[in-house]
């Protein structure tokens, strides 16, 4: 960076333009999130400012409404189950991919990551038509399988990134000292790549927890998840309860972001050990 006293007028103008436009865009990014939170504590029915008084009634609404609670439960059940499956599948695949040098590896990688890229509606229609004959539509199993497919690429990305920084000599040293492959993985590799696996699992959970297109097409009334319930809520008539749910979800994503940041720092520290 050039020190400030060297800047010409032209540079100053550009600097001001840069800061003003960047801060404007950052405001644009945060505004909707910040605007919806106060409304959830509003006493009145209407989703407009100024607020008419403080109240927790919309939170009470959420926690006492049977369909919202069932939706929350469904989201957690489906999210946890598909996260477990996706984390196992994705971590194994990443371990294989880092060792693989065979031809077609690039294609394989593209295939494994394709659920991230293929439009959700196509994936959803595929599931819908394919699951129907096996009675998997309107079932938890169907949704868990579908969400596992959507979430596992995110695990591959997160774990692969960590493995790229992993010193394979550590595994070789352990093997050379007589550890069998399972022990090498459990005692040497897993502790070192654990932050990557954990952030992969968080990505996977977030993917399932926020997914609504597949749920729209494949789930029955029994499997309605939180985003699905929000979708109907928004489509019909936004009630203030939606703003309470939204605020809860914003708190949730903040926690998610903080955990990921902690994991990233941990991962960097771990890499620091070998450096």
């Amino acid at each position: 960076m050039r020190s400030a006293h060297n800047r010409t007028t032209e540079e100053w103008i550009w600097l001001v333009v840069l800061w003003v436009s960047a801060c404007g865009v950052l405001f644009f990014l945060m505004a909707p999130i910040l605007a919806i939170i106060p409304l959830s504590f509003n006493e009145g029915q209407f989703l407009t400012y100024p607020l008419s008084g403080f109240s927790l009634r919309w939170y009470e609404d959420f926690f006492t409404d049977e369909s919202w609670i069932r939706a929350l439960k469904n989201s957690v059940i489906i999210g946890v189950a598909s996260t477990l499956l996706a984390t196992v599948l994705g971590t194994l695949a990443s371990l294989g991919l880092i060792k693989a040098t065979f031809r077609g590896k690039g294609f394989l990688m593209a295939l494994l990551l394709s659920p991230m890229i293929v439009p959700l509606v196509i994936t959803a229609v595929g599931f819908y038509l394919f699951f129907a004959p096996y009675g998997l539509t309107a079932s938890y199993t169907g949704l868990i399988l579908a969400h596992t497919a959507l979430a596992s690429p995110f695990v591959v990305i997160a774990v692969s990134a960590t493995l790229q920084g992993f010193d394979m000599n550590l595994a070789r040293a352990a093997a050379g000292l007589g550890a069998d492959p399972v022990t090498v993985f459990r005692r040497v590799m897993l502790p070192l790549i654990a932050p990557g696996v954990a952030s992969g699992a968080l990505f996977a959970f977030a993917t399932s927890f926020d997914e609504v297109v597949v749920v729209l097409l494949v789930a029955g009334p029994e499997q309605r998840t939180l985003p699905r319930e929000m979708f109907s809520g928004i489509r019909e008539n936004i009630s203030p309860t939606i703003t309470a749910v939204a605020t809860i979800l914003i708190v949730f994503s903040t926690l998610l972001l903080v955990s990921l940041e902690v994991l990233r720092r941990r991962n960097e520290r771990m890499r620091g050990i070998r450096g």
Partner: protein
Amino acid sequence: MDDGLSLKVKLRRAERMRQWRAFGLIAPMLLFLVVIFVVPIADMLRRSVHDVDLSEVWPRTTQAIGAWTDRTQAPDEPIFAALAQDIRDSQANRTLATAARRLNYDFSGSRSLIFGTARALPEDAPSWKAAVLEANDTWASPEIWAAIDRASGPITAFFLLQALDLERDPMGNLRAAPEDESIYLDVLARTFGVSLSVTLLCLALGFPVAYLLATLPPSKANPLMILVLLPFWTSLLVRTAAWIVLLQDQGLVNGALQWMGIIEHPIRLIFNRAGVLIAMTHVLLPFMILPLYSVMKGIPPVYMRAARSLGAPPTVAFLRIYLPQTLPGIAAGTLLTFIIALGYYITPALIGGAADQMVSYFIAFYTSDTVNWGMASALGTVLLTATLILYTIYNRLIGADQVKLG
């Protein structure tokens, strides 16, 4: 020499074992995705050309129609007899609606034609052709017979052609579909247009943010980065709901514009194109900022300094030296944003009006609302083809595993 060779062989064998083991680790996920993801999508693609609805319920007619050669007029007695038999049978086992639905995709009015004919058909007739024509003289037109022929399967281009607003005339020549049925090219153009606008908006808005984040020292950049990542991690439904609240007639945006005196009365910002563009840009902006940021982060500042010290004015130095180095990031960000935008469904469905729905909406609509799976699959094929072409380009240029998630 002998030892050397055997060592070589051993090495190769060991390496092969290693590769098999590596593949073994990938196999579970690969197998899972093939069964749960690839096969269903392949099956969906098959449905866009696979058409057995009619031949399953009207086996005789769809068989016999092959003998219809003079396509300028209705066919002869045997085909009419087959039709009469099929109508009686499918009336008896309640499959008439399936036939009517399939033919209605192609020939509007088929539903009432078929049900009316079924009601009016006599028990027995000396000439079925006369009896059928007596029941409804629409059967004299070659158009309905051509529709039956097109629907007799098992392979058809009908749905794919329809997805591109094309159809075949009774003689089998391609022609543009009638005006009132030509909606899909519009939908595809709209999908493309909205995606392109959103991508360009994201680039214009994302560039300064990425630049600022990449050039600030980490102690200042990190807190600002949170402002990009928090919206990125916030549920799509939450962000969509928030935009509806903000953009409604009594919302904060209209309030602010009125307060500043820019407008006198609230302007309509939701259930139209403006709302879709605003909300989609908001949702997709992080997908532009993050790849741009990671490329800009890797650009050494020395080039800019060199250009400046050699006398280039800042604007020239930026355009000639800095901007070209950000091209990989621009390519990655625009491709990624565009690919994701193409398949967007939820945001336009909730914030857009009827004229803002993109191709995904129609795919979902045909799947669950009208159960026209052929049409859903055909539109899906078009969307998937476009996505896969772009994904391949992305893969070649950037590499699939470089998708940045924060």
